[in-house]
């Protein structure tokens, strides 16, 4: 099998209580783009870490270009010609681009030469980058370029990309794909990890699908429908969320010229954000990560006070009121980070219910907590939203991401908010749970609540929103009805390609 670059045979890796990979075998050929497809927790990351030498397999073997391949550490893998672009970037914010690139190389050249090489490669592949800039000041798309250039400088034979497009605008995705196709034409093999089916169908030559640690199939994605791929991935069919017909009512939340300075050195300031949100409506706010999403949620939830007369809840100016007063008035929120922001990791689900629901759900009596009421409420959330947990006394940390997400969203929904602000409601949640959460948001809207959904998942926003706006460097674009919006228009609203150029192919 001379045309295979990397062959995996029977790779198995078990962690206490879970088998991450079970007897996985497949081949990656020379000069192909091979997709690795699967849900969260299907074992994609563990598999890739074994190829990159971060994790040792319990069983099984690999051959790289015909010779046995068992990297004990990442530098072994790198010297064999394997390079990896990480999903959660492996970058150092306080260091500059050149230093970051040097840290990922085995034998970095002198700083002057390295800067020149970075410029050369970034020009060849249409990824402009200034080697002297501090990484903390770069956008998500630019950070990814740092990772990619770090890999390309080592002339990799196999490039692993872990969910590379989740942080990019549609235009940036197009440019990335041109770069990848150019690499493929030069003979580099690419292992492309994603759960975005359309991307895989347009880009990849072959796809291997993992489910619960086992290989389901290897197929040719161009000849398979997205539906079939999804069903192989999930192992069952599930129904897409459906909106019930409803008509928008009065303005429930009005934000008028909201500007706030950046909260920290690497935060984003909000610049003159204005919009109106009506009862019964879902407003979707898109945008690439780090363009003011967290800051907007903090300004709306009351974690950061806004200038007077900039946030109106119905007829009432709540700009200078804190989270407790806003909750009392009916403005609830669920932030992006589940552990540590939406929920206290080491506290039980009951205690976490008290943290946001104490006043609205009557869990307080003269300042004393009514634990019975709190338990009842927690159990109600668990029942209504099908949260899989041994019981309400379980620590939040012990729940899987999807289950905890169902719990923290359900906790807010059952408090019958007039306005609900959610950030990334289905981030890192499997498809079935995501569909359930989206359905619950739609049901809440049909009961007359106003919902502001901040998300980086465009498909999600298109599915549940009535209107759509995008954040770009802390500014909010014009708000448009979702019906009739094309992906190109959305891309431009998100800030276009952030001054990237098309690869000089």
């Amino acid at each position: 099998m001379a045309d295979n670059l990397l062959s995996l045979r029977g790779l198995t890796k078990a962690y206490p209580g879970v088998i991450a990979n079970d007897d996985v075998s497949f081949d990656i050929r020379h000069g192909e783009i091979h997709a690795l497809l699967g849900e969260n927790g299907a074992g994609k990351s563990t598999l890739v870490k074994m190829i990159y030498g971060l994790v040792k397999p319990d069983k099984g073997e690999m051959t790289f270009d015909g010779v046995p391949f068992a990297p004990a550490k990442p530098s072994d893998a790198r010297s064999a010609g394997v390079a990896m672009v990480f999903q959660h970037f492996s970058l150092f914010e306080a260091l500059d681009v050149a230093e970051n690139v040097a840290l990922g190389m085995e034998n970095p050249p002198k700083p002057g030469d390295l800067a020149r090489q970075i410029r050369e490669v970034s020009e060849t592949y249409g990824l402009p980058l200034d080697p002297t800039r501090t990484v903390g000041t770069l956008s998500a798309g630019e950070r990814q370029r740092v990772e990619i250039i770090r890999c390309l400088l080592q002339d990799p034979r196999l490039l692993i990309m872990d969910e590379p497009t989740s942080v990019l605008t549609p235009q940036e995705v197009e440019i990335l794909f041109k770069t990848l196709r150019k690499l493929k034409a030069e003979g580099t093999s690419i292992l492309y990890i994603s759960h975005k089916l359309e991307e895989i169908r347009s880009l990849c030559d072959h796809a291997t699908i993992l489910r619960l640690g086992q290989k389901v199939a290897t197929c040719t994605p161009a000849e398979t429908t997205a539906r079939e791929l999804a069903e192989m991935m999930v192992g069952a069919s599930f129904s897409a969320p459906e909106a019930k017909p409803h008509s928008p009512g009065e303005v429930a939340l009005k934000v008028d010229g909201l500007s706030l300075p950046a909260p920290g050195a690497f935060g984003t300031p909000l610049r003159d954000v204005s919009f109106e949100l009506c009862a019964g409506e879902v407003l979707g706010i898109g945008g690439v990560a780090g363009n003011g999403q967290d800051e907007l949620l903090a300004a709306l939830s009351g974690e950061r006070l806004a200038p007077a007369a900039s946030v109106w809840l119905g007829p009432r100016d709540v700009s200078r009121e804190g989270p407790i007063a806003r909750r009392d008035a009916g403005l609830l929120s669920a932030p992006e980070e589940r552990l540590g922001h939406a929920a206290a990791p080491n506290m039980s689900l009951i205690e976490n219910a008290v943290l946001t629901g104490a006043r609205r759900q009557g869990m307080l009596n003269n300042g004393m907590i009514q634990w019975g009421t709190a338990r009842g409420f927690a159990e109600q959330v668990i029942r209504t939203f099908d949260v899989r947990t041994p019981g309400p006394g379980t620590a939040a940390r012990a729940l899987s991401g999807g289950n905890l997400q169902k719990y923290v969203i359900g906790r807010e929904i059952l408090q019958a908010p007039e306005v609900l602000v959610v950030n990334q409601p289905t981030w890192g949640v499997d498809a079935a749970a995501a569909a359930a959460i989206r359905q619950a948001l739609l049901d809440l809207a049909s009961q007359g609540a106003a919902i502001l959904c901040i998300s980086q998942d465009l498909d999600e926003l298109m599915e549940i929103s009535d209107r759509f706006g995008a954040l770009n460097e802390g500014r909010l674009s014009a708000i448009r009805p979702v019906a009739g919006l094309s992906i190109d228009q959305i891309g431009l609203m998100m800030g276009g390609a952030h001054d990237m150029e098309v690869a000089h192919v």
Partner: protein
Amino acid sequence: MDLSAINPVLLVASVMVSATPILLAAIGEMVVEKSGVLNLGVEGMMITGAVVGFAVAVNSTSPGLGFVAAALAGALLSLSFGFLTQYLLSNQVATGLGLTLVGLGLSSLIGKPYEGMKTATLPKLDIPVLSDLPVVGRMLFSHDIMVYLSLALVAAVWAFLKYTRAGLILRAVGESHDSAHALGYKVVRVRLLAILFGGACAGLGGAYLSLVRVPQWTEGITAGAGWIALAIVVFASWRAGRVAVGAYLFGGITVLQLNLQAAGAAVPVALLSASPYLITILVLVIISARGMHGAPASLGRPFHAST
């Protein structure tokens, strides 16, 4: 008050002597913190270095051997901190405070028999030409070797962090241990080496107190110098040059207020004694209030390689 009693040549010369122990401890701690570890045990490691250095110097009549022993003692003590925090993942703040308590107790135990003894001290260098310069020669170029070594160490640490690959890796580990681990760097090993270096530097600083500056052993000889070193690292925004400025500022005011006291200044003695602490902190707060702070992003966070 008679200001003419203060001799500027002697004043500058004693500033350098007075700043050296803090400078040594602070530059070591800066390297530790750059790697992302907060070791609050500087005071304990300093005083252990002071007593061990003194004891070895007395018994061997060689102050040089005393310094070597002090560095080893400081490093050994810091190793216990490293083992607890890096392998057993104990809380760094609590462990560091514990280290200081252990150091203080241990030093008075070891030091009891040596109280009131005298030791050989380091000779003043006689550098050809330079030492013979008028005024400047006595001010700057007639000190013992450790004064110059400490300054050379600052320059070396600065160059190491800025220009070498090992220094870059150390900064990267302190900046994001998860990223560094993902790239295959040995986070725990890098941090242990930094902790050892910091311990050795603190030991040297302590030995300088008991072997040169005082020079004899008294209980509690460090008198908070380790804490000042810690504060200097923070207010110096983790930069080697500013650490040196901070240490010399503190040393300078300490010596100046002693001279003022001797000259009979009409200021309460308590206020004069407190002035080095107050002024050092004030100046460094002003420095760090403008400009970048640059705390290593992973400072004080425990690292555990989960997968």
